[in-house]
């Protein structure tokens, strides 16, 4: 595990101890007083046995039960790579980035046109993520429109596991499909117990704001808890529409939604590897767009990350995403701000890198540029050492007034600690002209093409590949 994933400068804390407590206690109040609507009868039964107050589908959760569940937080959730080697320690201030999922469109790398996504695109994104240093995990990015849409989620999983070794966060359309995907993951890991012991997958599922646990989403959460496999339970609350318009109110309601799922998971299996987090999304009240990169959303993510730390649960956060219709200046500035902020707050599993068009389109350029920005930001969050060697007082004295440092041993020894980018331009104007006057987008496009044309991810063993194919085929009717 590289040190770079760890935040080495003070974490950005936006909520004081008192505010954290207040949000926590207010959340308990919502869960006790208002409760949640649970649309899956089996889950209602479990809540009931756990001591909740039930009225039909309405479940009101007592404070003590939430506190009990919060005492079961797993100290560390490890996600492995496809080969079962530890790849991410989701804890404290370790920050990892990955793509998003399920955009219906993609910007074609070769024509520049926005078009509907196909399976090949999911394979290509997987290849690119497999290659990029700063992408630690993979989500499918697009929705494949050229396969049986009832099981496109299964096709996505097959494509991802075939084209990348990195850990996978996936979505599943329903319980049956989820079972199939878990079965495929078990094949790849070499059995149920192996997968449980070193999982390389996490399911993305969610509550429905305001305060509902939908039937299928809950069934999916329950299956992961039964199997003791990692699950992300992330609300997508739109402030002013499906939650209070204020960040505080949104945070409390969203927190109640997550904790309801968390309590359920723990009633099924204590210490289920549960990943906290989610979106408190501001709506643009002129256009009705749910914005992926508003200031308010970024602020809310920082606050949510503080809550995650307070609970000692890993945080599922957002970065590298944009509301711009295309890859442009807006896309890179919004993507970059989100990367900086989620890094400073120490979000653990930070997704949606590559989203433009408010989550409706995937852009390779946005992924590639975000990868650069993440490198740049990691250099910041790495901080710097202060010791005899780095303070260099003897050297300062030796060189003295009017000297130069270019030829000193000390410079040679340390200059490589500075971060260098492949794509960020730092050349004199005329040289830039000579090199073809390329802007960042063009360079990112070229790099993506280069990866696709030259990178061959380590293939999955033929035997496993064939077995996966067989499973997919058996479901494709």
């Amino acid at each position: 595990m590289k040190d770079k994933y760890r935040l080495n400068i003070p974490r950005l804390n936006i909520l004081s101890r008192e505010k954290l407590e207040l949000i926590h206690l207010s959340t308990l109040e919502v869960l006790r007083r208002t409760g949640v609507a649970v649309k899956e009868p089996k889950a209602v039964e479990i809540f009931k046995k756990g001591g909740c107050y039930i009225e039909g589908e309405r479940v009101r959760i007592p404070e003590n039960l939430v506190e009990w569940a919060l005492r079961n937080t797993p100290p560390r959730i490890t996600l492995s790579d496809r080969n079962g080697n530890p790849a991410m320690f989701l804890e404290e201030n370790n920050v990892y980035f990955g793509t998003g999922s399920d955009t219906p469109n993609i910007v074609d790398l070769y024509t520049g046109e926005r078009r509907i996504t196909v399976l090949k695109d999911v394979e290509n994104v997987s290849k690119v993520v497999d290659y990029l240093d700063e992408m630690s995990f993979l989500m499918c990015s697009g929705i494949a429109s050229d396969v049986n849409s009832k099981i496109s989620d299964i096709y996505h999983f097959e494509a991802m596991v075939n084209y990348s070794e990195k850990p996978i966060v996936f979505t599943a359309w329903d319980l049956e499909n989820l079972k199939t995907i878990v079965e495929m993951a078990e094949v790849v890991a070499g059995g149920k117990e192996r997968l449980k012991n070193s999982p390389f997958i996490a399911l993305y599922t969610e509550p429905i704001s305001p305060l509902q646990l939908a039937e299928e989403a809950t069934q999916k959460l329950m299956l992961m808890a039964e199997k003791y496999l990692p699950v992300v339970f992330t609300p997508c609350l739109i402030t002013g529409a499906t939650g209070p318009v204020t960040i505080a109110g949104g945070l409390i309601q969203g927190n109640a939604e997550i904790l309801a799922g968390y309590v359920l998971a723990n009633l099924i299996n204590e210490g289920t590897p549960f990943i906290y987090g989610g979106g408190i999304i501001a709506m643009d009240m002129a256009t009705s767009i749910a914005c992926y990169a508003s200031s308010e959303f970024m602020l809310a993510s920082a606050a949510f990350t503080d809550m995650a730390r307070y609970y000692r649960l890993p945080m599922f956060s957002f970065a590298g995403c944009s509301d711009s219709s295309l890859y442009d200046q807006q896309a890179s500035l919004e993507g970059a701000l989100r990367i900086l902020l989620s890094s400073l707050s120490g979000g653990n599993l930070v997704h949606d890198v590559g989203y433009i068009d408010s989550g409706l389109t995937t852009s390779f350029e946005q992924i590639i540029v975000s990868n650069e920005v993440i490198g740049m930001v990691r250099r910041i969050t790495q901080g710097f050492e202060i010791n005899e060697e780095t303070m260099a007082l003897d050297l300062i004295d030796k060189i003295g007034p009017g000297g130069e440092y270019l030829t000193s041993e000390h410079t040679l020894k340390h200059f490589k600690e500075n971060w260098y980018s492949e794509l960020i331009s730092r050349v004199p104007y005329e040289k830039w002209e000579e090199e073809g006057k390329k802007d960042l987008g063009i360079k990112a496009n070229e790099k993506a093409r280069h990866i696709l044309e030259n990178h061959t991810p380590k293939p999955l063993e033929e035997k496993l590949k064939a077995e996966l194919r067989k499973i997919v085929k058996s479901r494709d009717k």
Partner: protein
Amino acid sequence: MDILEEIAIGVEKGDSNSVHALTEKALTQNISVGEILNNGLVAGMDVIGEKFKNNEVFIPEVLISAKAMKAGMELIKPLLAKANVESKGKVVIGTVKGDLHDIGKRIVAMLLEGAGFEVTDLGVDVSKEKFLEFVEKERADILGMSALLTTTMTYMKEVIEAVENANLKQDVRVIIGGAPITHSYAEEIKADGYAPDAASAIDLVKDLLKK
């Protein structure tokens, strides 16, 4: 200021209480329900609707006006049929089966209501049987469907086929929307209209009902 103007201003300001009281007062003054509707309530909404299109006001402000209009509508609704005032049109709307995305469809429904249409919102996860049932029951002029998922948008086609099979196609115009929906998809599945957002959905419905 005449009372109809006052009603219109009450709607514009989103003041439900005053609209309710003023409508009541207007009725005692023997002003016709048609006039109250068109020159009071709808006139107020028209102003707000125009301002919304010009980015002068925002969705919550429009919705609060729509709520105020509803406060007046409640009073005159029972009298409209008797007075032979035709409603601007009836809309049945819902998010299709398997899809739980709610809020975009709700905004469209509420704004249509604000624009003076009678709207029945069937909620989310709506089956074709239920759509048909309500189109018939309400004698709807417009059937609106919302879908935000690639996996559920295909269901819209099934609903349209069901509408055709039930011989309702000439009575009801089908419109569709939702984030992944496009014009060309609407054409492909033979919907009568598509709108990318709520503001244009209102224009779309007005247009379709003019024809």
